[in-house]
């Protein structure tokens, strides 16, 4: 089946503005959008640029906007989209470096802000810091995040204010604040309880719709809101 790929292209050395370019690809059942992009790059137009690595939805490199929703190109099957034309755009609101490659520096900066590592000042036990299976359960979703940026780039609050930490960063904050071994809760709550922190979340749920790992950052943010109002800072 022939499918048209409409890709938003931009080369800062040559183009003043981004523009759409169409490619036709012969698609077989099971082919992913990433397979389609490879087909274009390898056989039709070698100048097309995009990030990809693991092609199995674990590295988080190939997040992009596909038919108006953020997804991973590698776990989105073309025929399951049920469209003759597939529109592929870079993650919105992130600065475009070239074609589908966006600058993720600010995104990772915001992960770093919330101190994404275990803070524990009390001495560890003779062998390790124990955690009960029940306590570990609280983190089940949060540890799965692959930091692809699909959620933050889908968030209307982030579109309107780039200073907003965004769902990915807050989800990471949840992962450590709700870790029973961690002692940096107060520090982190102070960081996220900021005018550009979690109070910019308006429970729009775009991040939940976008997450390729089917995680729920909005739930984590709601838990953090409760934690902040019940903790004396």
């Amino acid at each position, binding site marked *: 089946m022939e499918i048209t790929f409409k890709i*938003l292209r931009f080369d800062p050395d040559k183009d003043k503005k981004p523009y759409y370019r169409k490619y036709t690809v012969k698609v077989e059942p099971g082919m992913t959008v990433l397979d389609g992009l490879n087909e274009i790059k390898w056989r039709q137009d070698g100048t097309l640029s995009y990030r990809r690595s693991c092609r199995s939805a674990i590295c988080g490199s190939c997040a992009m*906007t596909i*038919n*108006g*929703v953020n997804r991973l190109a590698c776990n989105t099957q073309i025929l399951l989209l049920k469209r003759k034309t597939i529109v592929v*755009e870079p993650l*919105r609101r992130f600065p475009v470096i070239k074609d589908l490659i966006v600058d993720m520096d600010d995104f990772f900066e915001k992960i770093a802000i919330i101190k994404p590592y275990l803070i524990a000042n009390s001495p560890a036990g003779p062998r390790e810091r124990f955690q009960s299976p029940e306590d570990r359960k609280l983190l089940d979703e949060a540890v799965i995040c692959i930091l692809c940026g699909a959620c933050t780039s*889908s968030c*209307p609050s982030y579109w309107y204010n780039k200073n907003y930490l965004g769902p990915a960063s807050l989800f990471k904050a949840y992962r450590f604040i709700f870790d029973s071994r961690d002692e940096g809760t107060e520090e982190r709550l102070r960081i996220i309880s900021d005018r550009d922190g979690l109070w910019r979340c*308006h*429970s*729009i*749920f*775009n991040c*939940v*719709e976008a997450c390729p790992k089917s995680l*729920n950052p*909005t*739930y984590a943010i*709601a*838990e953090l*809101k*409760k934690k902040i109002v019940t903790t004396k800072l």
Partner: protein
Amino acid sequence: MFYRWHVGTVAWILHRLSGVLIVVYLVLHIWVMSFLQKGPESFNRIMRLLESPLFKLLEIGLLGVVIYHALNGIRLVILDLGWGMAHQKKMFWAVVVVGIVIFVLGAIPLYPF
């Protein structure tokens, strides 16, 4: 650069829009009330104007706006408490259905024709 409108997006946009409309109404309401201090004559004149069918219809519109904002506000409070996260879409449709019922019940007595 179109981004798909999910149920949550629509609920949010309507919530914002209804919020702005309510603020606009509040300002108009206070302005109308300010005629009270200009004496009974001028107040009666503006009240007669407000009894025209056009304003009755606008009042019905206001009823709809307030009902949506109130019910979706309850939905947001419930979600912010971390309850029913997996059912936020169903909760939106519940807001719509309950809202329409209350709206119809409230709009019938207001209907000017």
